Structure formats: C-alpha cells, structure tokens
C-alpha cells in the first residue's frame, strides 16, 4: 500500500464522474493529436524545404508566366549554382476529384535540383528517350492503380494542344519515384518540358516558376534581392523567396493554419480545464471530512496538497496518454489511406512529447486550486464534516 492507493481510492469514489471527466480529457488529447497531424501535413512543405533552394515566381501571382529565358540570366547571377523551371499544368485525369499536381520539367535538371527524389536508372533513361514519358510519385501510382508502361490521358483545363482542341494529352508512365525525405510529396506527375512546349497552343517559351539552387544559404536574402533586381522594370517582374517561405505561403492560402489549430486547441483545453477543474473542486468539497481525517491521522498539510495534486495529475495525464495513444493508432490507419492527399500526415515525436507535457501541465493547473484548498483546511473544522 502506498500513497497511490489513496489517490486510486479517491478517483474510484465517484466512478461515473471520473469516467466522464477521463473520457473528455481522452477526447481532447485525441483532437490535439489529429490537429497536430493536420498541421504537420500542411506545413511539411516548409519543414522539408531545402535551405539552398529559392523559388522565383511572377511578382503578381504564381499563375502569371515568366519567360523561360530568365533561367540563363539567373544562372549568371553570383551565388546562383543552378536554375530550373516548372509550370502548373492543371489537367484532369478521368475525374476532377483525382486531383494531383502535374508539371512539365527538364528531367536532368529536375533530378539535379531534387536529389531527394529517387528514380531507378532505367526509368531515367526511358524518361529521356520517351518524348511523352512521365514519372509519377509512388503514392499517386498506387492510389490510381497505374503500372509502368500505362498510357495516361490528361484532359487539359489550361494548356490545350495546338490544333487539337480539347483532346486529352497522352502520356506514358516510364517510371515511379520515391523520396528519401519524410513527407516529400509523392503525388507529383512530371513530364518533359520539350514535349509540352512544342505541343501547347499558346505561351511557348513561358514557364510558371523557377527553382534556383544557391551556393550559400546564408546569402539567400541577398541573392533573392539580386534576382528580383535583375528583372525589375521588365514586362515580368519576379518575386524570389526561400523554398520554405514559399511553401509556408502556399499552405497559408487555405488560411493561417497555425492560428486556426492553436485557436481550436485553446478552446478545447480551456474547456478541459473547466471540466476537470470542476471535477477536482467538487471531489475535494465532498471529501472535506475525509481530508480532515487524514490530517488528524498525521498527514501534513503539504502532504495532503501533494495527494490532491497527484490525483489531478494522475487523472489528466493518464487520460492524456490514452488520447495520444489513440491518436497514434488513428495515424496508423489514416496515414496510408490519405498518403496520396496528405503526404505529410503523421504525428511527429515532438508533438507526442508536447501532448504528454501538456497533459502534465493541465493536471497541475487543474489540481492547484483544490489542492491549496485542501492544504488550508483547518483540521478541527474539517472534522466537523465527518
């Protein structure tokens, strides 16, 4: 028998109330886990962004085009190692709900720019040999049930083929890419720029944005400013920023996710403070005589305070731990199922630790006032409540 026996006895005193409070805390931490996963999924682009890559886009918007000739100009700027371009294709495969990102690229330049993308040598060769060849991320290929060699029609919404009206573009899947970085988007559909540029009905020589590799990440702001200065007062001025800033800005197009998630969590935890705090306050109020008895038996006021605090921390921490375990279980189910839509959907170890830390802090905050009340009770007065 130990002090924990007393804590356990106190928690079992009103089983229904304890169960309801416990359940609400479990649910709160499950919500915490799920929201953390979502936040990770949306912010993953910024998290895994390479510090030595810049994104250069049209100053007005991402969907305004830039001359492809900028690439050579940028490569002349001191500090720039390499540049490559991508373009938003925006086609539809079978049904608009099958959304995935499509872009024409120059294969060799793309693979140089993204060393984290892993493509088998054989697939690389076939990509270079096949004019309408495409490589796609493994998550996308698995989601849509494609196999290498499949012919994939993509219905244009922006880029029609010259002289072919609304006819679908036809691509051949020549390879599947993986990535050796957790959370890297494995749903991209990448095809050759030369094929795209020759066949499109308008905008030849125009591209969507550039990726620029720089030699020294510490000089990123300076180089970005130099790039923008190079094209200042031209017909297509640029906006250059780090890949991380670009990804964060892209994610925030759906709203300030960090603020949304923080606001929801604040509301959830405020409610939990009220629910669990009320439970603890009520529990101590009902046990004034019992607490007086413990003090009469020789328990010091500070020991009684610790007992009540430990009771609160035990209740909230156990429930919080269970909530996080359920969140991990949910992640195991959701992650493979939603990999194609949310490649970065996972619960990070630091979020797990944060959750557990939050549980301990919440337990302490919830218990502090009832514990102080228990500590201050005068023994003789409390015994009158027996």
């Amino acid at each position, binding site marked *: *028998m130990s002090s924990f026996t*007393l804590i356990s006895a106190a928690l079992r*005193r009103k089983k229904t109330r304890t169960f309801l409070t416990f359940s609400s805390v479990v649910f709160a931490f499950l919500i915490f886990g799920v929201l953390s996963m979502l936040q990770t999924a949306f912010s993953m682009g910024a998290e895994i962004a390479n510090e030595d890559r810049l994104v250069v886009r049209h100053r007005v918007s991402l969907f305004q085009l830039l001359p492809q000739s900028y690439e050579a100009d940028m490569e002349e700027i001191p500090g720039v190692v390499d540049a490559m371009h991508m373009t938003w294709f925006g086609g539809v495969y079978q049904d608009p709900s099958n959304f995935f990102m499509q872009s024409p690229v120059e294969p060799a330049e793309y693979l140089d720019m993204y060393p984290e993308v892993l493509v088998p040598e054989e697939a690389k060769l076939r990509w270079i040999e096949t004019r309408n060849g495409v490589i796609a991320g493994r998550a996308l290929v698995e989601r849509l049930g494609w196999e290498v060699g499949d012919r994939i029609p993509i219905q244009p919404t922006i880029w029609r083929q010259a002289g072919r009206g609304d006819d679908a573009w036809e691509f051949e899947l020549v390879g599947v890419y993986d990535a050796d970085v957790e959370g890297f988007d494995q749903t991209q559909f990448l095809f050759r720029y030369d094929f795209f540029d020759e066949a499109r009905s308008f905008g030849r020589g125009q591209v969507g944005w550039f990726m620029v590799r720089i030699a020294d990440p510490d000089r990123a702001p300076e180089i970005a400013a130099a790039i923008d200065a190079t094209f200042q007062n031209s017909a297509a001025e640029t906006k250059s920023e780090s890949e991380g800033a670009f990804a964060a800005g892209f994610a925030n197009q759906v709203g300030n996710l960090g603020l949304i998630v923080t606001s929801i969590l604040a509301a959830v935890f405020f409610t939990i403070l009220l629910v669990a705090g009320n439970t603890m306050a009520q529990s101590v109020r009902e046990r004034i005589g019992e607490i007086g008895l413990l003090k009469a*038996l020789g*328990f010091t*006021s500070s020991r009684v305070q610790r007992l009540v605090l430990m009771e609160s921390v035990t209740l909230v921490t156990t429930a919080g731990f269970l909530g996080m375990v359920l969140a991990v279980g949910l992640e195991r189910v959701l992650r493979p199922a939603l990999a194609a839509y949310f490649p970065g959907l996972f619960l990070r170890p630091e979020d797990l630790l944060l959750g557990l830390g939050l549980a301990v802090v919440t337990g302490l905050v919830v218990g502090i006032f009832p514990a102080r009340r228990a500590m201050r009770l005068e023994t003789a007065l409390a015994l009158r409540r027996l």
Partner: protein
Amino acid sequence: MVDVRGVSRTFHRGRTPVPVLKGLSLQMEKGEFLALMGPSGSGKSTLLNLIAGLDRPTGGEVIVGGSEIHLLSERKLAGWRSRNVGFVFQFSNLLGALSAERNVAVPLLLTSFSARERRRRVDIALEIVGLSERGKHRPRELSGGEQQRVGIARALVNDPMLLVCDEPTGDLDRTTSAEILDLLVALNRDHGKTILMVTHDPVAAERASRTLHLEDGRLAEGGDDGTVAVPVHEPAGAAV
C-alpha cells in the same frame, strides 16, 4: 500523561470574540479512561481537540506524554499526532474504495515500517477488534458496528499512547454501542490504552473510570473538581 494548565480557547465570529474554554485545567493519568460530558457548546470537543493536537489554545499549556504540544509547529504537531494519538469518531468515515485492512493501514503510510511489519500490525489491530476474518471486506459490506470497529483498529494500528474518541457510539444502536464500549474498556483494561472520550450518553460515560463535566468552558461545580470518580481498570501492556 495529560496535563492541561489554565487553557483558554477563543474563536471569533466576525469581529466578536467567542470564548469557548476559560482557563481550564485538568490532569489525566496514564492508563486512565476519562469521559468528558456536558451540554452542546460547553467546550468538550474543543478540549478534546486541544489535547489531541488538532487545535491550539489561545492561552495556557497543553502537555501530553511530556511534550508541550501547544508549542509545536503545524508540521511537528502532525508528526506527533501520527505517533501518539489514535482517533475514533462518531462516524467511522472509512474510505469506501478500500478494504477494511487497507483502511486500517492508512496511518502506517506515515511510518517507515517494512511491508511485513505493516502487515503484522494490521493483523493484530483487526484481531483486537475481533474482525480478523473481515479484513478483505469493503466498508459497505460491513455493519455499522463493524465499521466502527475498523475505525478503532485504524486508531490502534500505530500503537498510540492516547486514544481520543468523539461520540464513538453516537451513531450506533444500544446493543452495538454496548459492544463498542466493551471494546474500549478492554483496550483500556487489557492493553493499557489511555482513553479520552467525549459523549452525551450517561450510559457510555458510566463505563469510563472517571467522568468530567464541562459547563460554559469550565469544569462543572460539585463533585471532585467537576469529576466523578469511578474505579480505574488495571492497565496491562501495550496493545500493538
């Protein structure tokens, strides 16, 4: 054993002082069974609280077992209570989620006894109150008298020198009251426990070796310093 010297205790109702004990003195011998009687508000529970170290006097001295307990800090007083005083209340107030034997063991959480020694003490305490076979039962599975016996076992488990009982039979029927009083008398007579009992019940007070009457915070007039002498039982050895 107990030496109360000129003790006063004043409470405050708002700004109005309410004197409850007014310069009261009394002595108790080791092995004595003293009953405190008096009307409601006469100060008997306040006096019991002072002697048991649950409260401090406004004036005067309280010396129990040689310790000037009116001078002890709150922390030291708590430690002193855990070693020297056993409490029996009108309601046993057992923890409902714990078995009888675990309820008895609660005061042992404050000691450094080994698990084996704790087990031994709990067994002896339950045996003394005649509940050896009921240790695994929860309070709700016990009768009122049995619950009070568990409360007495809890009071005994640390082998205190003083047992204070506040209306120990106040919530029991006549037959069960008699059984509990028999037990207290046996603890005093056979185990040498010094017992201070507050009661309204003259029948209960008759079982004590001496009865003290309080009125308006003082010893009642008449008798021997307000006391009624009854033959003292012969104490015999420590209980646990």
